[in-house]
């Protein structure tokens, strides 16, 4: 365990008053703690390098998957390489401007002074926030599981079931003002996800079935379930034969942050969830139990905690958070449900949670990064023809580099002051 890992945020905040107050001078062997800035920089180094490395490998994949590159390589190596670099440059350029906007567009918009034009210049950032919203929730869902020693690969399925519930409340309940309808739909989304999280929780607690296999199987089950629901009369949109739900009422939608942009208050619900989860984990008795069970179940049992209860509750909250991600989509983006709305958001949650080292506040930044990748991917595909799947590859690489910090340190020859161990979040089949 590294020192960054076990000093949780709450304690970091309280450290100045507590350190060395034990009534006895610390033994001389104890080194002075590194400054907080240095710790923060060191903590950021690995994630930043991980993203860079992943993008470099992504670039190599772009080049290698271009068949004309190989044809030209023997005839005109210089031109082939130049073109290859050019295509990488334009792909990543499109990705970045799709996620953050282009400087030119900002300058032009502000110069024109036209408010519509200014707003549309901010559209890429709005899209990033929009894409980041569900990712905050799925990242939190996975991170909460990690803190309780559970590996929830099922955020994807929980998201879908949450979306089914939220969509239903969204179109079936009518005539309510938004400040009642929206919370109701959001609560339904949470409940749907929580139910789907309850299943692996209770199976793990009562039979020992490993949550990884169960949640993966429940993902597939959820896909089929959604396909089934979307063809049910009363849920399927009238006059359509393809699987698509009715359109939700406008009163159930997350209100936009700025009129004219798609970014909405769902993002702030995400931020609120981050702080709620942080409080739950580090400031409440339940969180104390979750983390104790996660670190050492037998000591938790010795201390009189209910392992089964913590496991079930943590899986339900985790599932509920994933369900909220579903509301971020159906009440914030698509406004109706189709079978393809998630496209791997649950799996992105794993990458985000790992990148944030399962700590709630880190989730915000990781989710923004992955949101930017997602937001930029579509413009990239339409501008350069590079498939969106590139982003999935990049994300897998990011997880790999982040989860094996020694790998990044090895590549970049970073020396670490103290010995660091592995981060083990999950357990073998028997547990």
């Amino acid at each position: 365990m590294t020192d960054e890992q076990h000093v949780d945020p709450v304690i970091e905040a309280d450290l100045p008053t507590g350190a060395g107050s034990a009534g006895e001078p610390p033994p001389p062997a104890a080194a002075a703690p590194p400054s907080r800035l240095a710790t923060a920089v060191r903590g950021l180094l690995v994630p930043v390098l991980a993203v860079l490395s992943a993008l470099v490998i992504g670039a190599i994949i772009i080049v290698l998957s271009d068949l004309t590159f190989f044809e030209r390589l023997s005839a005109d190596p210089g031109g082939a390489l130049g073109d290859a670099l050019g295509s990488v440059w334009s792909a990543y350029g499109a990705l970045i401007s799709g996620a953050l906007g282009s400087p030119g567009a900002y300058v032009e918009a502000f110069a024109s002074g036209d408010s519509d034009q200014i707003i549309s210049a901010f559209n890429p950032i709005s899209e990033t926030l929009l894409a980041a919203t569900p990712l905050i929730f799925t990242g939190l869902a996975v991170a909460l599981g990690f803190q309780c020693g559970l590996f929830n690969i099922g955020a994807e399925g929980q998201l879908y079931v949450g979306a089914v519930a939220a969509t239903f409340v969204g179109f079936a309940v009518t005539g309510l003002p938004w400040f009642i309808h929206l919370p109701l739909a959001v609560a339904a989304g949470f409940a749907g996800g929580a139910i789907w999280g309850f299943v692996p929780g209770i199976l793990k607690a009562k039979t020992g079935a490993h949550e990884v296999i169960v949640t993966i199987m429940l993902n597939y089950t959820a896909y089929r379930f959604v396909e089934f629901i979307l063809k049910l009369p009363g849920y399927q949109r009238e006059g359509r034969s393809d699987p698509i739900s009715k359109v939700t009422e406008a009163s159930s939608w997350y209100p936009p942050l700025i009129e004219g942009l798609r970014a909405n208050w769902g993002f702030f619900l995400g931020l609120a969830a981050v702080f709620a989860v942080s409080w739950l984990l580090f400031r409440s008795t339940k969180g104390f139990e979750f983390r104790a069970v996660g670190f050492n179940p037998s000591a938790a049992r010795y201390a009189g905690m209910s392992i089964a209860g913590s496991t079930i509750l943590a899986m339900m909250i985790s599932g509920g958070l994933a369900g909220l991600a579903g509301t971020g989509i159906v009440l914030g983006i698509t406004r109706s449900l189709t079978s393809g709305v998630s496209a791997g958001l649950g799996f992105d949650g794993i990458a985000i949670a790992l990148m944030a080292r399962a700590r709630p506040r880190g989730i915000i930044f990781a989710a923004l990064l992955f949101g930017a990748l997602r937001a930029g991917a579509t413009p990239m595909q339409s501008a350069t023809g590079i498939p969106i799947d590139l982003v999935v590859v990049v994300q897998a690489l990011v997880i790999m580099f982040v989860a094996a910090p020694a790998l990044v340190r090895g590549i970049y020859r970073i020396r670490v002051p103290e010995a660091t161990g592995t981060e083990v979040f999950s357990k073998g089949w028997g547990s």
Partner: protein
Amino acid sequence: MTAAVAAPGAIVDRGAVRRQRIIGIFYLLLAAIAAFVLTSGIAPEATSTFALKPAGSKTGLDIPNLVVPSVVTLYAVAALCGFLGAIQLVRGFGTRWAVVLGIAVAVFVFGFLTWAAVGKSMSLIGILQLTVVKALPITFGALSGLLCERAGVVNIAIEGMLLTGAFTGAVVGSATGNNIVGLVAAGFVGAALGTLLAVLAIRYRMDQIIAGTVINIFAAGITGFVSTRVLQLHRELNEPQRFPQIPIPVLSEIPIIGPMFFSGNIFLYALFVLIGLIHYGLFYTRWGLRVRAVGEHPRAADTVGINVLGTRYRNVILGGIVAGVGGAYFTLGSTGSFVQDMTAGRGFIGLAAMIFGAWTPVGAFLASLVFGFADAVQARLSILNIALPSEFLLMVPYLVTIVVVAGLVGRVRAPAADGRPYEKE
């Protein structure tokens, strides 16, 4: 000191009692479904027909179709399930409860098929043949997991290895026009992913489940990326030749068994050889003894001079090859061309089959047949147009996996050091 003390004979395990009771109620439930739900709306004289001879088969012994009166059969099924449930509740079956559970479920499944085939002819042999076909890649996945886990490394990347194997087999098989080259290439790519898993799990001591998940996501991403970017433009790269069926003379003529096990293609026979080899290797050779020692107690193995990490590397790479070759079955042995995410969780089901089969090759194969059967019934029933939404039938293999994992984990013992990184100091 007057409180009651249980008599010495009354030593009982409360958990076991509850489990026995639940199982007993489950049997009664099956009986009730068979007697009341499935029989409803069936004419008393209706019959269900099961074909036992492959359609279009001209050779082989002539076996007649099995025709049963539907309602009578269902009542018989209900009676049998009810009888088992009653005994279970009254006195239990002791240590043989698992066998009885298997029998009860099998009987009920037969009743279910009878219901589905009312007034129609269902090709039972077709379902059984399809069972083997569906079990094939699952078994490859299970064997891959077994090789890794016997040495103490959890391989949850089987899914990604299968998918990449399927992709590589199709592309290389098409590009070279030679499906054997495609098969070998799939093995190589599997080995590469195995190496990646080994390096992450062993060298960098990354959480093994996360390492496997990374490989799965990576595999889904890269095959999706390349098939969108390349294969959509160059369809000729996704049209490999398939391996032909090679019925084995004489053996393939045996009723039922012949069409199931001796009329397949090279993958099926390779699988049999592999099961035999791994079984023999694991339990009768020096290699197997050392592998199992490393998986059970790596430090003990280390102290007698066995190279723990080397053994793990070797086994994980072997596991990668097996999964890569098994993945090629999806394209070179089955559908012919690669489709995104075509493995649809079969790697994970393979993992469950490995657990169900108690980490033995033969057990893994038998367990895979159970999953294959669920898959086959699902596929056949959706053709028969019965009164169940196809989505629910499609859930069946996944639900069976959950039930199996929930029912068996903790009752079968995993290698003791499974999933734990080994550190010398």
